[in-house]
């Protein structure tokens, strides 16, 4: 199957279809919405991870762990 660079193809069952015009624009817009959604989820996840690590660091300092000991558990 030969394909030109930068063209988008989708497969429906065994049929391969090149996306053109409005279909291509709709697919790209849809995909951008999915990416934006993923970024939001990943940002929320990363923020929670950072908050958890900060909390562990604070607790670890209180109980007197060294920086090396803290680094080993987070």
């Amino acid at each position: 199957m030969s394909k030109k660079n930068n063209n988008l193809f989708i497969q429906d069952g065994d049929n391969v279809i090149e996306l053109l015009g409005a279909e291509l624009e709709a697919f790209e817009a849809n995909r951008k919405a999915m990416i934006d959604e993923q970024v939001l989820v990943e940002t929320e996840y990363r923020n929670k991870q950072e908050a958890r690590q900060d909390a562990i660091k604070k607790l670890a300092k209180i109980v007197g762990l060294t920086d090396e000991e803290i680094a080993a558990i987070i």
Partner: protein
Amino acid sequence: MATTTNYGWTTPDDTALVKDGAAAIRSLGSSIDTSLNTALGTKKAGLVLLNTTSFTGVASTSLTQGIFNSSYRNYFIRIQFTGATASGSLTFRFRTTGTDNSNANYQKQELSSSSTTVTGARSANQTSFTISSLQTDFNIADIYLYNPQIVSNTGFQIFTAIVPATTGPLTVHQVGGFNATTQFDAMSFISTGANITGYYQVYGYND
């Protein structure tokens, strides 16, 4: 008396008499019936291969319309996929009569491991389900799918192995569902980045 190679079913010799033909057929039929029932453990196969499809350098690939139907309640899909570059993720959406469902009803809980680091994550009310990031090495995912064609919530669990040669393998176990009673007849695998190449097999579970 001649017998077949694998199961030893008795078949008539070339010199057998025509008058004994009915009894020979009856005996052979009975032997086949017994052997099949023994091999399958029931009257039909438990897991039935419905479709195998390859895809090469595409942005998305959709299962054949109607592959989820009233013949089977639950399905198993094994997919192997590779990204043209390590860009974006492989996601999926369920599908009805040729249209992907992008309603914000996809729920996910996942447990992943990378070396000694184990992490959990949850996302709710998404418009698609992300299986994994794309790698130029192959990834594999086993998808257990429950009730896609039933008027009921659709559930699934996915075991994914991400196999990047540079960082070492990762494992992900995801469970989730589509939180509405929509009936689906197929699903689409959609890349959010690089084009994808691979193949999938779809099986139906007999009740």
